[in-house]
């Protein structure tokens, strides 16, 4: 199961990197987000999985696809000049990071010790609500205010003349 969702996530991400069509790239992003939601389910956290699907695959990707269609930019524009050095440098950085990450995870004793812990009970919405509204009430209200500010800001930026 884990391998299946991990492959869905990574295949979606890699397809996004190599996709020329922007709308299809957005759909690859949805695939990757769905894989991440599946990983959250396997981590016994259905709340996080539901939030992932609603907020990321729902709201954010729909907004992104709306903007792509609004701007009518379905293909990447041809480059004004080729940048071979930057391109090869970024490929090199990616390969070096991948090798380094594989070594780091394989050699980490801390991860091995934590991985041996017996898996505890699943997360549910009741626990989350109690923690959210008893310990983090102020932060919750501040986040609400932040969302309002972002909404007003987005409208102010897009509107031609206020």
């Amino acid at each position, binding site marked *: 199961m884990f391998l299946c969702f991990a492959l869905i996530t990574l295949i979606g*991400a890699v397809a996004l*990197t190599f996709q020329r069509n922007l709308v299809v790239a957005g759909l690859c992003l949805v695939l990757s987000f769905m894989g*991440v939601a599946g990983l959250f389910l396997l981590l016994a956290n259905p709340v996080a999985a539901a*939030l992932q699907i609603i907020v990321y695959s729902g709201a954010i990707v729909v*907004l992104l696809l709306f*903007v792509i269609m609004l701007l009518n930019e379905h293909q990447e524009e041809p480059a004004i000049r080729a940048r071979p050095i930057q391109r090869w440098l970024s490929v090199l950085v990616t390969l070096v990071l991948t090798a380094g990450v594989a070594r780091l995870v394989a050699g980490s004793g801390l991860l091995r010790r934590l*991985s041996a812990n017996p898996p505890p009970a699943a997360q549910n919405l009741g626990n989350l609500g109690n923690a*959210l509204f008893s310990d983090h009430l102020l932060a919750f209200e501040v986040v609400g205010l*932040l969302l309002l500010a972002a909404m007003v800001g987005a409208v102010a930026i897009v509107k031609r003349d206020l």
Partner: protein
Amino acid sequence: MTTLISILSGGLQGYILVALLLFITGLATVLCRRSILVQFMGVELMLNAANVALVAFARFRGSDVQGTVFYLFIIAVAACEAAVGLALVVGLYRLRQSTDTDRADALKQ
């Protein structure tokens, strides 16, 4: 060998490896692509990689509910970032009729 089995069977190492590979893919997308919309998708991938690592650690350190609370706040900030970021992309397109980052290389037109 035990590490490989742990990764393939869904131990903590497997989740962290997936999170890090997802982060690297997002970084490669931001570095290699020119369209600012695809770069935005790469940033979202990197943010998701951090979320996977956070939820995996919260699970394997005793299923602490604080991890999920933190994830909720991260997702709220990500929604704000998406709204304002896409508004800025629309503003840039109005100014330059392009979403290519190479064509947006001057502060003033």
